[in-house]
């Protein structure tokens, strides 16, 4: 059996804060290759292209750098032609890095086999329709939770996201500071977040990983605040048709069976480069998507408007 290798590249002082995640990766059977750097961020995309032994990559770097410029896309095609999930994490401060690492480690360690998916959207017929379709595609073999903004308020959703499900997918309008749905969901709404983290949150919408007029984008804030081990967002505007392509493919891949967010993104990516280019993967590229039984129980107990 081929050894699965994850490459972690981080500034030297950051490495120590990430050790819980390294232990979790090793515990999950991955070989971890660590590379620290002092000043210039290495060109990781170029390295992945030259190799054929990597399963995933996490690049950590100065938070002055924006997701749009540190990596070219959510995955890089390696020498063997495989899509290698390549994620970014801004090194803001030691506390946030430690919180991210312990969040991601917790998600790895909590186990669970059944995929549980939260479907989130803005209150708009176009997006509710996409969610309905996703629910139809998934409901036969997945626990699906319909938490769109017509049935749950922002405060309720923050709590619901703390159920600890493996995956949440948002469709609707997006901004660098957050989702337009739920009367505006911002990272500050998770300041007091004390719930169980999600495996990953995908924002299939415009600009949630963009740094335009914001210090840190919403997609970057979620893993650093312990809301999810990983997130996925766009650095620029996206097309509704492309996001629908993503939504359909995400459902297809979930139905086929998938373990990690990186694998999900790499397999679900539409063939059109324009549909993929705006997106970035943030946080742990190996974040598991399975939901523990307790998380499903908590999610079932979430109150929504009928």
């Amino acid at each position: 059996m081929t050894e699965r290798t994850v490459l972690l590249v981080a500034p030297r002082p950051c490495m120590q804060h990430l050790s819980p995640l390294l232990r979790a990766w090793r515990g999950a059977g991955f070989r971890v290759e660590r590379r620290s750097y002092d000043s210039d961020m290495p060109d990781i995309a170029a390295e992945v292209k030259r190799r054929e032994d990597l399963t995933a990559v996490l690049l950590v770097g100065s938070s002055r750098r924006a997701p749009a410029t540190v990596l070219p896309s959510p995955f890089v095609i390696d020498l063997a032609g495989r899509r290698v999930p390549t994620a970014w994490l801004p090194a803001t401060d030691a506390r946030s890095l430690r919180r991210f690492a312990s969040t991601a480690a917790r998600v790895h360690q909590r186990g669970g086999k059944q995929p549980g998916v939260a479907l989130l959207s803005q209150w708009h017929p176009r997006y509710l329709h996409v969610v309905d379709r996703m629910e139809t595609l998934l409901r036969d073999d997945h626990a699906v939770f319909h938490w769109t903004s017509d049935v749950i308020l922002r405060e309720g959703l923050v709590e619901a996201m703390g159920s600890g499900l493996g995956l949440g997918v948002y469709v609707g309008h997006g901004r660098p500071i957050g989702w337009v749905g739920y009367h505006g969901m911002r990272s500050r709404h998770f300041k007091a977040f004390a719930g169980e983290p999600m495996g990953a949150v995908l924002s299939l919408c415009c600009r949630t990983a963009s740094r335009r007029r914001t210090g840190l984008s919403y997609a970057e804030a979620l893993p650093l605040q312990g809301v999810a081990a990983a997130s996925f967002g766009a650095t620029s505007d996206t097309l509704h048709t492309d996001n629908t392509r993503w939504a359909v493919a995400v459902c297809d891949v979930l139905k086929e069976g998938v373990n990690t967010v990186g694998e999900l993104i790499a397999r679900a990516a539409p063939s059109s480069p324009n549909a993929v280019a705006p997106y970035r993967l943030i946080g742990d590229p190996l974040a598991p998507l399975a939901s523990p039984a307790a998380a499903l129980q908590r999610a079932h107990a979430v109150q929504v408007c009928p």
Partner: protein
Amino acid sequence: MKTNETEETLRITDDVINQLRSLLTQIQPRLPQTWPSGSLFQSELGLDSLDLVELVARVEQRYGMLISDSELPRFVSLDAMADYICARKQFDA
């Protein structure tokens, strides 16, 4: 010879229409088992824009082709879509 080529083209088009019909029935199970391939997606079959985008996404997956959003308005029926796919397949080959 020419007749053989025409028959082959018709057979390929029929195959594509059948594949599209099957894809569309997966997307919209309420559709009947069969319907005229010239039926208009929106006005006669009651499909909406999401159904069409999903159909295009599945066509892209199945036939390994990229379809620009600007092409979407021309996909008004199975016939129109099959013609497009066959032309693209011929061109790409």
